[in-house]
């Protein structure tokens, strides 16, 4: 029989004023299994805790109930005290007779009767408590960062600077991401490449960072502290170790006219290329689809001219497996292409705006490349169609964003600001030009943001028209933009030379399939979901995976960088200890009863349930059962309520404990 000790706290007079604590102690003392019961003025004080410890030792108590305040207040305190006295901390329970009793009732008789029942209930519960050992999980102190844009770069540098190894994986031939494409950045108008490229170089030179560009995550196995990540290194056809980055191959390549994605297809590149001159690593890649050698077997010029002999046409994709303890996902965004309706998507598109049909209707990123000093026009604003300088330019906001009827309801957050920046850049470069902006409303929260936006109107003479464009069409070499100015209530028609659409920020293509590999959740737009919108904004529900940047939702550079540093801090917190310790309130599968219906797996929000094969000694498969990874389990117990045979049990909240409480009432 258990020897339960019950300690009733007066909490000064907070409890004893309305609860007859002595009577509670006397009544509870009569319950089966209770070996000792007493009351004390302040159980949480040092003398109170010492009383508890002494009683455990002297009375050889096996289980403890402290009837006092809410367990949310002092459960830790008493469990620690119990542990110090040599008992497992989970053999101690608190009965809440203050917040749930003495403070909310006035009648002493009623409150005392209720307190006796509350304590009695916890006495029955504690009888069924089991010794729970603290769960420890080993931690591999290396991390994986997926995506080499500014968020990924920042996270990788922060973690690496802290002394931990980082694997940075980038799908493109170079890191840099979208920020490398930008001309200047709001609200300071400093050159994007000037602030970006030093960080890229830092990554390349950092002894703790292993950089895999032209690579993709193939498979993720394991769990927090213990992931095994398989990375596909796509065949570059250039040996990275041998290549010096001299660039002769690119000069000699006879195929020169391939539209460069980095320049939004405005500039051209050879078949062997780096996307932009400051690429990191500065190792070219052969675009096999466009290379004559790969298409016809002839040519081979690059190999002939390569001094170090780095060109390798035989190279194949390789798979590397990296053990890591944490993963930062920073896969960033892409722009909504309005002329191309994503397959199977609810997004309806904006065919009426002529993007892709009228050459001088471009998107914001294309404008960035036009404005960039290192861009295809050397920083001159010239029309793609005929290379003339546009004198009238129209910017249209919210293309795709905030348009529920088109399928995207969210605000893309950066467009108001970058359009203001575009009007300024335009005005700086085309002094006699006029910029018009059609907008719904301007959203400029952020340090110095509204000032910046105002400047575009007040100093840079941009004309803002509140209203949407209903139609635009080519007329000669002009584009007629028809819209309404709702502020004045008139129809507006502008004959523009160029139109820039602020298209919506969307997750990268394939974001959903990566999420499935990682076992993280995503919303209907494929943005990755954080564990808690307010309190855990950088963590995924899946333990050990963190989010940085626009893959979680539209973000500007400062936000992306802050979140990246926050994600890095979370990784470093995880790496601060050799072993991950966690409260043992986790679900456990009783394999004997499990029939492998995996209802538990279906309801587990953490992806903690795995399938486990049970085999006999000869190795024959007997059955497949569920297994709950204690490192990943969140401890909610939804699996147990769902399990038809109750073969999964949440420690600390077992059916036995709960039924004992109900039966005590």
């Amino acid at each position, binding site marked *: 029989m258990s020897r339960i000790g019950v300690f009733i706290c007066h909490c000064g007079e907070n409890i004893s004023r309305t609860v007859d604590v002595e009577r509670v102690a006397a009544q509870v003392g009569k319950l*089966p299994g209770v070996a000792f019961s007493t009351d004390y003025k302040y159980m949480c004080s040092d003398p109170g805790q010492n009383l508890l410890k002494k009683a455990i030792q002297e009375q050889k108590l096996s289980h403890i109930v402290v009837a006092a305040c809410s367990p949310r207040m002092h459960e830790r305190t008493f469990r620690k005290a119990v542990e110090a006295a040599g008992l497992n901390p989970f053999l101690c329970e608190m009965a809440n007779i203050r917040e749930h009793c003495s403070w909310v009732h006035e009648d002493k008789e009623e409150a005392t009767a209720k307190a006796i029942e509350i304590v009695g209930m916890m006495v029955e519960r504690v009888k069924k408590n089991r010794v729970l050992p603290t769960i420890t999980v080993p931690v591999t102190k290396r991390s994986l960062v997926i995506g080499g844009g500014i968020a990924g770069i920042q996270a990788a540098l922060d973690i690496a600077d802290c002394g931990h190894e980082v694997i940075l994986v980038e799908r493109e031939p170079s890191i840099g991401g979208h920020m490398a494409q930008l001309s200047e950045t709001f609200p300071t108008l400093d050159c994007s490449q000037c602030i970006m490229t030093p960080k890229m170089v830092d990554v390349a030179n950092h002894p703790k960072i292993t950089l895999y560009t032209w690579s993709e995550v193939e498979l993720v196995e394991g769990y927090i502290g213990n992931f095994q990540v398989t990375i596909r290194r796509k065949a570059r056809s250039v040996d990275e170790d041998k290549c010096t980055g001299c660039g002769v191959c690119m000069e000699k390549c006879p195929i020169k006219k391939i539209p460069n994605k980095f320049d939004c297809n405005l500039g051209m590149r050879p078949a062997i290329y780096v996307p932009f001159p400051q690429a990191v690593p500065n190792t070219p890649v052969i675009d096999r689809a466009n290379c004559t050698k790969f298409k016809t077997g002839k040519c081979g010029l690059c190999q002939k001219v390569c001094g170090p002999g780095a060109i390798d046409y035989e190279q194949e994709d390789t798979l590397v497996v990296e053990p890591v303890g944490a993963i930062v996902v920073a896969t960033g965004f892409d722009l909504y292409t309005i002329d191309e309706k994503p397959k199977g998507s609810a997004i309806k598109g904006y065919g009426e705006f002529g993007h892709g049909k009228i050459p001088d209707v471009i998107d914001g990123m294309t404008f960035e490349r036009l404005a960039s000093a290192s861009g295809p026009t050397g920083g001159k604003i010239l029309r793609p169609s005929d290379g003339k300088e546009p004198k009238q330019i129209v910017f249209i906001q919210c293309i795709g964003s905030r348009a529920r009827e088109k399928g995207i309801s969210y605000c893309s957050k950066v467009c108001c600001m970058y359009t203001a920046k575009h009007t300024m850049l335009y005005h700086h470069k085309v002094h006699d030009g006029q910029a018009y902006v059609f907008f719904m409303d301007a959203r400029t929260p952020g340090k110095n943001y509204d000032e910046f936006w105002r400047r575009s109107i007040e100093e840079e003479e941009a004309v803002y028209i509140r209203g949407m464009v209903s139609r635009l069409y080519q007329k000669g070499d002009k584009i007629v933009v028809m819209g309404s100015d709702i502020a004045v209530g008139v129809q507006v028609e502008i004959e523009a030379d160029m139109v820039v659409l602020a298209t919506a920020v969307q997750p990268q293509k394939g974001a959903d399939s990566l999420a499935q590999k990682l076992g993280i959740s995503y919303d209907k737009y494929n943005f990755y979901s954080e564990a808690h919108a307010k309190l855990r904004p950088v963590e995924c529900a899946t333990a050990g995976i963190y989010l940085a940047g626009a893959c979680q939702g539209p973000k500007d550079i400062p936000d992306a960088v802050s979140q990246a540093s926050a994600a890095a801090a979370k990784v470093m917190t995880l790496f601060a200890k050799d072993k991950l310790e966690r409260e043992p309130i986790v679900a456990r599968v009783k394999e004997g009863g499990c029939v492998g219906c995996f209802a538990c797996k279906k309801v587990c929000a953490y992806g903690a349930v795995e399938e486990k094969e049970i085999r006999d000694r000869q190795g024959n498969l007997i059955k497949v059962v569920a297994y709950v990874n204690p490192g990943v389990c969140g401890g909610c117990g939804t699996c147990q309520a769902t399990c038809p045979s109750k073969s999964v049990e949440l420690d600390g909240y077992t059916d036995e404990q709960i039924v*004992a409480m109900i039966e005590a009432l």
Partner: protein
Amino acid sequence: MQNYISQQNFNALLDSLISQGKRVVAPRTNAGTVLYEPLANAADMVIDQLPRRSGKEAFFPLCEDIMTYQKEGQKIELQDIDPTRFLETVLVGVRPCDAAAIPVLDAVFSWDYKDEFFLERRKKTTIIGLACTQADDACFCTAVGLTPADPKGADLFLTPLEGGGYACETQSEKGEALVANNKELFAEPNGYKPLPLAEPQTGKFDLKKVKAWLDEHFEDPAWDSIATRCVGCGACAFVCPACHCFDIVDEGTEKQGKRRKNWDACGFWKFTHHASGHNPRDQQPKRYRNRIMHKFKYYDDKFGQTLCTGCGRCIRLCPVGIDIADILQDIDKIEVKVKVEENS
């Protein structure tokens, strides 16, 4: 000798017993199903149908308390059930297949341990049997040595007559007392003709041959073909007039509760499930084999009786159509073959 009672007087007899505070248990309809249940009124009796469950319930309840416990402080208080509180009962309209099972059960409940619960109820119950006039192709009482007019087990045996009423034969002192105490309701027989008896449509089998085969064939592939389809419910055992296995369970809370005796069935997986996790009857055919073995071999070995009265309930109600009469007939045939082989 007064041995005729009209239906009207019979009902009057029952009503008078009810008014005397006796529990009169007879077939009645409960939510559409005919069951043996206590009558509030003799008119509720549905005597022309075989109830779904047998009459054994009157002595061997589905569930009964055998002890109660209460815990307070460090004390545990146990309290026995007082069998003298059992009610005086008259069990009415019991067909030969149900009535004959009762003396068969006497053997096991008064063997090495005298089950006071069973025996006390038995003592306090008077059984009014009824000759059977209806049978179907699931009935096989004649194959297990009974007849539709067998009074075995009854204290008073009624034979339904053409034009209503019953011919009554007392079979015991209890029966005699019942008639004697209600003389005014009985009359002289007056040339009444009994209704034609039931004719079970099931073929015959030789119980001795069946037992001889069972003696030799604990292990036999036939069990698999017979009972692979058994789904392991307790329907056959629970509707059987002779099955008598029970389980003892403690139910209640930390503070108080009861020890109870509940019907159990060898078809259940848990029936022989050991605490260790081992189950000697790990497959359904082994469990079904036990049912046949117990009825036609073990009980015979121990008490010289067959634990089956051919009521056919298990045949009608088996979810997967397992037909005990068919099995016994098949065994009967196999046995013949063996003999022929031996002779040749």
